[in-house]
């Protein structure tokens, strides 16, 4: 019991024991180190090598620190510090918790807004509107992370990489939307074919050859495509996917320019400048040739 009561006597005894031990330890280590350094054979006169000097300085600091901690005033100050430690820790924890909670809350709010930002679509016409909805969600909620301003020496490269990723994601969305709109006539044509077959069945006029059914379907499909291709929706989707493709290619090329710059090869930009010069020169020469021929 006594041992136990001594062990929990308080921080004072623990601190005195630790300081004594530290001084007892670092003092001889310092002495050993100095002796060892001095005894190195062939050691030239003058300053110590950088590593040794650094270690010597570090050991001296530890010895001095241990010694100064042993003084009465210092120990009191440390003890006071230890006394207020739980309070400080609590405050630090509280601050960290609050920050994390706020971040979580913001993320949850953002997630909640994902629904709100596409509420207009209601997801009822899911087939048609899914891609628009996803594009909107992406633009409203995710794109901003790729548009965060970058800092430091490599900021331009990082921004280009983010921009390329952004355009790539938009292109994927555009391609999916385009593929979907191209699939619509297929779906519709099968439905119409079924109705037509049902009609013919009622009349008892069903064709016997499977090829006749195929011909019927292709004709319906062709009609549906012709109708679709003339709609403004299709033209807009086509323009969007073409635009997305061009955006991606432009940003990707921009990124690759930087990579190529570090290699011993000319970039497209270099070659274009050269081609332009050759083009202009050729044109001038031809004009002069024609003028001279007259």
């Amino acid at each position, binding site marked *: 019991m006594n041992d136990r009561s001594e062990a929990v006597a308080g921080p004072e005894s623990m601190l005195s024991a630790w300081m004594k031990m530290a001084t007892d330890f670092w003092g001889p280590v310092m002495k050993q180190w100095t002796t060892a350094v001095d005894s190195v054979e062939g050691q030239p006169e003058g300053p110590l090598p950088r590593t040794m000097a650094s270690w010597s300085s570090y050991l001296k600091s530890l010895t001095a620190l241990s010694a100064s901690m042993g003084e009465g005033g210092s120990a009191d100050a440390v003890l006071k510090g230890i006394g207020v430690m739980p309070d400080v820790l609590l405050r630090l924890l509280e601050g960290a918790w609050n920050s994390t909670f706020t971040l979580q809350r913001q993320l949850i709010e953002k997630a909640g807004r994902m629904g709100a930002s596409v509420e207009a679509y209601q997801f009822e016409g899911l087939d048609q509107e899914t891609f628009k909805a996803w594009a909107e969600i992406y633009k409203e909620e995710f794109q901003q992370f790729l548009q965060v301003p970058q800092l430091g020496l490599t900021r331009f490269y990082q921004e280009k990489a983010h921009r390329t990723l952004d355009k790539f994601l938009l292109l994927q969305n555009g391609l999916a939307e385009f593929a979907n709109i191209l699939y619509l006539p297929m779906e519709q044509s099968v439905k119409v074919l079924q109705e037509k077959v049902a009609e013919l069945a*009622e009349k008892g006029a069903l064709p016997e050859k*499977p090829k006749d059914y195929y011909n019927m379907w292709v004709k319906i499909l062709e009609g549906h495509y012709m109708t679709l291709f003339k709609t403004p929706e299709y033209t807009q989707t*086509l323009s969007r996917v*073409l635009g997305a493709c061009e955006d991606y290619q432009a940003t990707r090329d921009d990124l690759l320019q930087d990579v190529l710059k570090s290699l011993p090869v000319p970039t497209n930009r270099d070659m274009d400048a050269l081609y332009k010069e050759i*083009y202009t020169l050729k*044109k001038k020469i031809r004009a002069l040739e024609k003028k001279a021929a*007259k």
Partner: protein
Amino acid sequence: MAQPGIPVDLIMAKLVEDAEKVGKRAQKAADVMLGALDTELGPTAFRIVYEEDRVRLKHYMPAGGVQLKHPLLIVYAQINRETMLDLQPGRSVIKNFLDGGVEVYMVDWGYPTRKDKFLTIDDHVNGYMDNIVDFILERHQLSQLHLMGICMGGTFSVIYSALHPQKVKNLVTTVTPTNFDTNQGLLHIWMKAIDVDRMVDTFGNIPADLMNFAFLLLNPARLMIDKYVGFLENMDKRDFVENFIRMEKWIFDSPDITGETFRQFVKDCYQKNLLINSQMEVGGERVELKNITMPLLNFYGKFDHLVPPAACELLCQRVGSKDTEDICLETGHIGIYVSSKCQRAFSPKIIEWLKARDQPAGRPRRAARSTASVAAASGGKRRAATAAKAKKA
């Protein structure tokens, strides 16, 4: 027992029958596909007589002798290749012309590379085309030639004839878009919607694969499904397979389109419709259609989904010539050149029309060739034209 509404038994029987046929066909098809196939394009012999950058000039001589005093220069489009006019024996516009005694020159625009992206319509029309025309005229010691344009090459020929009317004796335009203010063809609708600046700035030259994909999308049911179903049904027939592969080769043998030319073509023609209204400018000069005073023969296809009749049929009304003729054939954009029905209505008509308008011959300056005795006197006319041009300049 009553007859069922759906003759399932008959349909199934036909299915089984078809499956057996497919099996037999597949066996034969393997022999055809694995055997030697003649799928070469452009079988008619020619010589390259002029080259400038990527552009070449093919020269075809009739074996049976030249019957026209003026040669015919054919200018193809920048989309796809001129080999379409000489696709195969029996379906060759070139061969038909040669059989009719027409000496033919044909422009091969080649495959543009990145360095060609700056070339404009002006560079093609007042540059390459004019240089080629001058070369032919010099070679024949003539002051004029017959000019025939195909599709976009027809548009170039119209522009050329308006800017250099003194060098063109007769003009033949085939499936040539000149009026772009129509929504008949899907291409016209789509071209109005695209951001051509962004496209050219991004790609430089317009990639051929992109163009081909766009063309396939004009009718996916037929061009991406039905066409290949037809191939599967006939792949045991060697002739069919050879013809089919030739056409496939031609369709997908596509050069890129030079960027700046495409930009101007889309903006000035498809989007602003300047050409038909004589408001287009090429090389700083206005393309005045009233300058086209030579005889004009204008062919187009009734079922052409790329260049619909509405895009072609205004030309004859807007030119200055009093000798014009519109001919609308009941076919599509390519059928006009390759369908066996049109082989009879197309080339013979052009030969006959040119023969009727080949006189008076361009007078030769000096006797240089077998036809030169007629060609020599043309120097005076040519010099006069050159003098007029110099005065104008």
